[in-house]
Structures are given as C-alpha cells and as structure tokens.
C-alpha cells in the first residue's frame, strides 16, 4: 500500500499539488486502494459469512 501512496505524491509538477487535494479525493484517486476495499467487503460479508453459515449446518444421517 505504501508504494501506491508514494506514486500519488510523485506528480508534484501537476497544477493541483497533492498537498492541496482534499483527503477524500486522494482516496478516490487511488484505484488500488479502492480495489482492495471493493474486494474485501463482499468477500467478508457475503462470501465468508455465507460459506460459514452453510458449513455450520449439521449434517443429517
């Protein structure tokens, strides 16, 4: 993650200096951070939780 953050800072020659960019915009400007949260949310809440519920159904004999 640290690496991607640095990349965002690299373009200091741009008109809008990163320091002036609001925090939220900086988050939205980082596609890999968004990718991380966008995959984690459904993996935890939908897939893992769902799979755990199915796995805990008692097996009939």
């Amino acid at each position, binding site marked *: 993650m640290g690496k991607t953050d640095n990349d965002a800072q690299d373009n200091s020659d741009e*008109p809008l200096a990163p320091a002036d960019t609001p925090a939220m915009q900086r988050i*939205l400007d980082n*596609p890999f951070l968004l*990718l991380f949260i*966008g995959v984690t949310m*459904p993996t935890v*809440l*939908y897939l893992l939780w769902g*799979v755990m519920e199915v796995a805990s*159904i008692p097996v009939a004999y």
Partner: protein
Amino acid sequence: MTAIEIGHIGTSGAQYQYRTCKFTGRRVERSAELLIRANAVAAVVFLAVGGLFGLLVALTRWPAVQLLPADWFYLVLTGHGANVLLFWIIFFEIALLYFASAVILGSRIATPKFAWLGFLLMIVGAVMANYAVLKGDSTVMFTSYPPMLAEHWFYLSLILFAVGALIGVIVFFATLVVAKAENTYNGSVPLVTFGAITAAIIAVFTLASGAIILVPTWLWSLGLISGIDTLMYKIVWWGMGHSSQQINVAAHISIWYAIAAMTVGAKPLSEKVSRFAFLMYILFLQLASAHHLLAEPGLSSAWKIVNTSYMMYLAVMASMIHGLTVPGAVEAAQRRNGYTRGWFEWLTKAPWGNPAFSGMFMSLVMFGFIGGITGVILGTEQLNVLMHNTIYVPGHFHGTVVAGTTLAFMAMTYIVVPLIFQRDIILPGLAKWQPYIFGLGAGGISLFMMGAGTLGVPRRHWDIAMTDAANAYEFSPAAYLMMGLNGISAIFAATGGLLFVLLIVGSVLFGRRLDVPGAKLNFPLHDDSKVVSQYGSEATFKLPGTVTLVTIFFLTFILYYFVNWKYLSEIWQFN
C-alpha cells in the same frame, strides 16, 4: 515499476503510434484502437447469436406458437443466457475499459500483447461454450446448478473466458498506471473513467468468485471430485452471477455520463456527489448477490438482511443519485445551450434523432422505472417470496440488462464506430429509429414477463398448460395473454436487435471513411464533447424539469412498493 518507467523516458513518440481524433481532439493510440475494435466486433457477433436464441425462446413460451420442442427449448435457453449475458456484455465491457482508460486519458494501452492473449482466450471460451451447448450435453442453463451436470468442455470454456476477461481487467489497471506515469492527464481521472474503475473493481470480485466455483465444478465433471455442495455452489456462483450484473450497471452509468457529455456537452452536476455514488457501489453493490438466495432455508435471516437491505440500500441510494444527476446534467447543459423555455424545453429540444442520445435516455428511464424499482421489490426478503422463480424474475432483469445495459451499449456503439473505426454510420434515417424499435420491444418483454410472473407463471418452463402433468394446474387466461404479448414484444426487440447488428456491421464494412480531410459525421458530436475527458462540475441545481421527473419516479416507486406489501398481506391466510 521499472517497465513502466522505461516507457516514461520519452520513448512514447518513437515506439507507439498515435493519431489525433479530429472530432474530439483526443490522442488515440493504435493498439488501443485495434483492441477496442476487436472486442466490439466480437460483442456484436455474440449479441446476434444470443438475440436469435432469445427470439426462439420467447416464441416457444408464446403458448399459441410454442415453436421449439422441449429439449431444444432448454438448450436454446442455455445458449441465450450464455451468449447475451456473458459474451455480448463482457466483450463490450472490455472494449469499454480500454476506451475509458486509453482513449479518454489519451494514453497508450499497457501490454497490448497480453491484452490480445486475453481476447484470444475469451474467443476460444465463447466459441467452445457454444459448441458444448449446441452439441446438446450441456443443457444446464447458464447458472449450471449442480447436481445437474454439463459436459466438462462447458465448464472449461467458461473458465477460459473468465481468465481472458480478467486479463482485460488487469490491462485496464495497468493502463491507468501508465497514463499516470506518463502524465497524459492532470489531477483526478474524468468521471467516466472513474465509473470504469468501479466496473473493473467489481469485475475482479466477479471473476475471482467465478474461478473459485467453476474450477472445482469442472474437476467434478471430469470425475476428479465426488460432488459439489449445492448451497455452497449457489453462494459462490452468485458472487459471480450477480456481481457481473453490477459491472454492467457501473459500465452503463459511465456510458450515460459519456454520451451526455458527447451529445449535449453535459458536465456532471457535482463530481463529488457522483464519485461518492460510485464509491457506494464499490463498497456495497456486490453484497446484493444474496438476493438470489433469499428463499434458501440454509442461510440465516441476519445474513440475508444485512446483505440485501441494510448495506444494499446505500447502493440503491447511489443508483438514485445517478438517476438524478444524469438527467440533471443533461438539463443543465441544454439550458446552457439556450433551451431555457419552461420546465421541459431542454428535453423536447434534445437530439432525439441521434441514436446515441435517444438510446441513452431511454436506457436511463427504463433502467430506473422498469429494472430498478422491481429489483428493489425482488431484493426485499418478504416480498421476494411473491415472485421467486416466476417469470417475473426474467422480466425484471430484461428491464435492467436489456432495456438498461444493452440499450446503453448500443447507444455507445453509435459513437464508437465513427470515432474508433473511423467509419460513419450508414443509413442514418434508419439508424435514427433503431433504438426506439429495440427499446419498445425490450420494455415490452420486461413488462409482460413481469405481468405473467405476477400471475404465477414459472420461469424456465416449456409448457404452462401442463399437458400430461400428474398434477394439472390452470393459469388464468390473463397469463396466456401476457405470454402472447411477450412474444409480440420479442419480435420487436429482435427486429431492433437485428437492425442494430446490420447497421453496425454495415457501417464498419461500408461506412463512409472519416479519416479524410473535411469528413463530417451523420450524427454530429456536441462542440463541447471534450468535457468527457475533463474533471469538473456544472455546479448548478436549478433544474425544475429533472426535479419533476425524479418526483414522478419516487411516487411510482413508493406506490408500487406498497402495492406489493398489500398483495403479500392478502396471500397470508392466517387470521
């Protein structure tokens, strides 16, 4: 990192071929252009095949016609789902990802060879899937629930297709990195690209879920695994099956913004608000996969409700934001263009004769009113039981994925062909009508299937008369009427679809060349079309027309929502 920095050292001019588009002023790189063309052509071919299958399905479900015998019906239905929902849509989306990264950012495409490999895998997968389905051993519907077993080629074909698509998504992300490193744009990416990022993020989860479930299922079909747990399958499969629909939503909303920008010069009302709405999609939209499992006894209500209500409504809110800001942006731009009289001159004087605009606006309206509202109903745990597994469900999703996504993609194609193939649209007088014919048909099949579903007609059923069935059941005459009207609408939709395919293939092959000096477009872009690749808001909220439309939408929504609760209370027989 190193590979990218090499590209950075000013080699781009020597190594990569660019041209400047004379209609938009964008820099277009050669490999990006060729990849977009290839993916778009493949998309249209599979739409043609899948659309034909769709017509055959609808004519079979028209009781007075019942075109195909039962085994062919289920075979063709499997082929329909796979060709349109997977192949048409995903090929087009890969083209769109390359457009939204390389073309809109004026960058070269990263690793074109790798991108071609992805394309090749997708083609092999899609052709192989059609072969497996048409051979007749894989009539499992595109959901392929075990214990139904298809031939092993079927699963392998889907895996190859998914790997190819994943490569396309990786190339998209790499192109973003290249564009940033080579400074082809300043500051934040334009909103259309941000929407494409949203789509690509959802695609990663989608394709990962697909791999997790299809690989073991493939091994099972080869006899290497003894069985697949059916409920486990459904959970993971719908991580793919539903999320892929959310790629579509993010993609077609980006297209709405793009077409609004290019045809009337619309800027987002507020970059902040629209981006926030896309962020809600990234966070919450994929959870809605759980609405396909609302009737499963093995899963708790807590899981169902958290995934389909509490969190999901934030994503629903995001859709409503886009539903407000897209027409709002059009209204604001049109007022700037001088159409300021009354509440609705901006709308009546819109370029309705341009199929890109008319297709986009109809997609917006039908996605909201037909697909959107009914989706919220179906995704509500209590209401779901009213319509679960009836033909209401295909009715709903033809509202989203046909009247919404497909129509928007068609509209975008009318822009992609002149800009990327550099050929003008042929027969403009006919092209003008195509979105209306297709839109009428698509709206019709959606509404009539939902009508029949409300009366209890099942989905995926060859014979609602239940001839020879042990337990006879008589559907009301109204249900038969609905299925007949569905068949008639299907003829309209198929006509509109065929017209689209002919116009596009004809334009690509025989359209007037646009790479000559002085060439003009049959459907001109707006003078301000460059706003599509800029960051910036309209920052006005004086939009009486849009506010009226949105109010009508909310009233319809509330009314229909309560009608369904009333309906539920009536079937509750205990008192």
